[in-house]
């Protein structure tokens, strides 16, 4: 050990150069697909740009943003997903994982079954759900069998987002797997000791399970929020299939059917940039999306930095 220590300075420099060489593909990628686009996005946001003419317009795009009702609707919808869809996913994933740890028979089989839907291609899963949840579809048949009036899910502005939430809960697989691994990592003897002390199931969950899995809970929530901010495909497909419209450049179809209830910020950004060709304005929305996701990424980075200190450090 003292040998490596003595040889450290020249070797560190040599390793530094070597690392630079080995990592060069990614460093180029980072520059071309991260740093440059961010700078360019900021630059374009002060311009009017439609792929052909570039014209400096100062703060016009930003001013327009404050009068753009659809942008605000899309922000509200995206926030709805963060506030309702993400907790629903995290809690459901945790509950299913918790159940899996309690199964004495067939745990492997059930794990496979619960995980499977998360692999179904997003477009295929969404098209399926729009069909299953159509007014006369199987789900509503089942609901009405119990004498309850079933909603018109993807055709009703109040029910489209809850419908998408159900779709999200169906594809819970990854969250569930991460929780399952964390739950199985909790030392068994803690539960045994608590059981001897007479702690109830709920009490054990609160005092042992929750503190032990809190880093994973945090990780799932934060990544869930970041993915909710990018929520695009399912909303786009659901609105298109429910409305029965194709999308193509220059088409007048505005996503968000019904009544813009499924219009999320990334969709509106996409529409502004690549359907209306108001690329400068799209960049304003892009910066907003960047700022929002960056806040949560920073939380994640702090968590990872704490971990890399012990394990990824220079040991």
């Amino acid at each position, binding site marked *: 050990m003292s040998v490596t220590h003595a040889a450290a300075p020249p070797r560190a420099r040599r390793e530094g150069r070597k*690392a630079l060489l*080995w990592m060069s593909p990614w460093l180029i990628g980072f520059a*071309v697909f991260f740093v440059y686009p961010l700078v*360019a996005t900021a630059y374009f946001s002060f311009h009017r740009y439609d792929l052909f003419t570039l014209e400096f317009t100062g703060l016009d795009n930003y001013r327009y943003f404050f009068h753009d009702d659809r942008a605000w609707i899309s922000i509200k919808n995206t926030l709805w997903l963060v506030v309702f869809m993400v907790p629903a996913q995290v809690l459901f994933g945790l509950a299913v994982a918790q159940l899996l740890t309690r199964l004495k028979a067939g745990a492997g089989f059930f794990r496979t079954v619960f995980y499977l839907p998360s692999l179904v291609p997003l477009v295929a899963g969404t098209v399926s759900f729009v*069909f299953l949840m159509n007014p006369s579809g199987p789900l509503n048949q089942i609901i009405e069998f119990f004498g309850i009036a079933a909603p018109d899910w993807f055709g009703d502005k109040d029910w489209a987002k809850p419908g998408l939430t159900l779709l999200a809960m169906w594809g819970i697989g990854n969250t569930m797997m991460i929780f399952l691994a964390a739950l199985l990592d909790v030392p068994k003897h803690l539960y045994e000791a608590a059981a001897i002390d007479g702690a109830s199931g709920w009490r054990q969950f609160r005092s042992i399970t929750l503190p032990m899995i809190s880093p994973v809970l945090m990780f799932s929530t934060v990544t869930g929020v970041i993915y909710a901010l990018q929520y695009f495909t399912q909303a786009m497909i659901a609105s*298109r299939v429910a409305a029965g419209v194709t999308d193509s450049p220059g088409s007048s179809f505005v996503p968000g059917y019904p009544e813009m209830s499924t219009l999320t910020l990334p969709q509106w950004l996409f529409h502004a940039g690549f359907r209306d060709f108001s690329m400068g304005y799209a960049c304003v929305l892009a910066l907003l999306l960047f700022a929002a996701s960056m806040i949560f*990424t920073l939380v994640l980075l702090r968590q990872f930095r704490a971990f890399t200190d012990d394990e990824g450090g*220079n040991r």
Partner: protein
Amino acid sequence: MTTTLATRPPAAAAPARRTGTRGGRVRRTLYWIATHALAVALSLMFIGPLVFVALTALMTDDQALTGELWPDSWNWGNFAEVFARSHLLGWLGNTFMYAGLGTLFMLLSSVPVAYAMARFRFRGRKLAFLAVITMMMLPPQVIAVPVYLIWARFELTGTLWPLILPMLLGDAFSIFLLRQFLITIPREYTEAARVDGCSDFWTLIRVILPMARPAIAAVALFQFFYCWNDYYGPLLYAQINEENWTLSLGLASFRALHSVQWNLTMAATLLVMAPVIIVFFFAQRVFIEGVTLTGVKG
């Protein structure tokens, strides 16, 4: 006391203790039944949608509109009709090209980068790792406009190349996951190879790659599935050119093109899902180990 415990709802019951009393045994049995019944009910909810899709795919189009759950007649010809009415094979070929080349390029570029990040000691390695996470979490729509303009300059919009070529420059998620695995390999292995006079390149090939096979298999599968399922990327670049559509793009416009023929739409949906589900059953372990790696454990 045993009676109060026995009447307690099973969900709140503590994990069964070996009390040996009859009440304890009854309670354990009830608990067993309750948890397994719940698991079966959940399974039906997870599998149900796929079953209904399959059943609808086999109905006549009139029946598919009625909301009936069981097909009157089994119309296997619906699948043939999907092939006849759409360019499913063409979409499949494009999807294979995107997913196959994307995965290959990603592996070629990301494995060495992750190796360097996990093994070499240099200033800024922590910073590099944090940069990888930041890039991994960046919503793709944020950088869409400038990146689109880059590809427009190379006249590659309308093709899938803007999605494939960047894979040569590494994929943040794959680098992250590989690095998480590689740091768990004890340094003694690489040090021993170094002492034996192995260069870094050969250490990677001969020592690291065989040990990292599960992680490499996991990122390869994740990447393949990501490309296979991707809708946003192909929508942005290939929507304008029907020749380069992928399965996702084709399926997304399928219902609109074939008005309200839900049976055919469901048949097409099933055909798109099938390969993924089949692969999953063969490679389940790889997936499950891979997902666990994405957790926060160091």
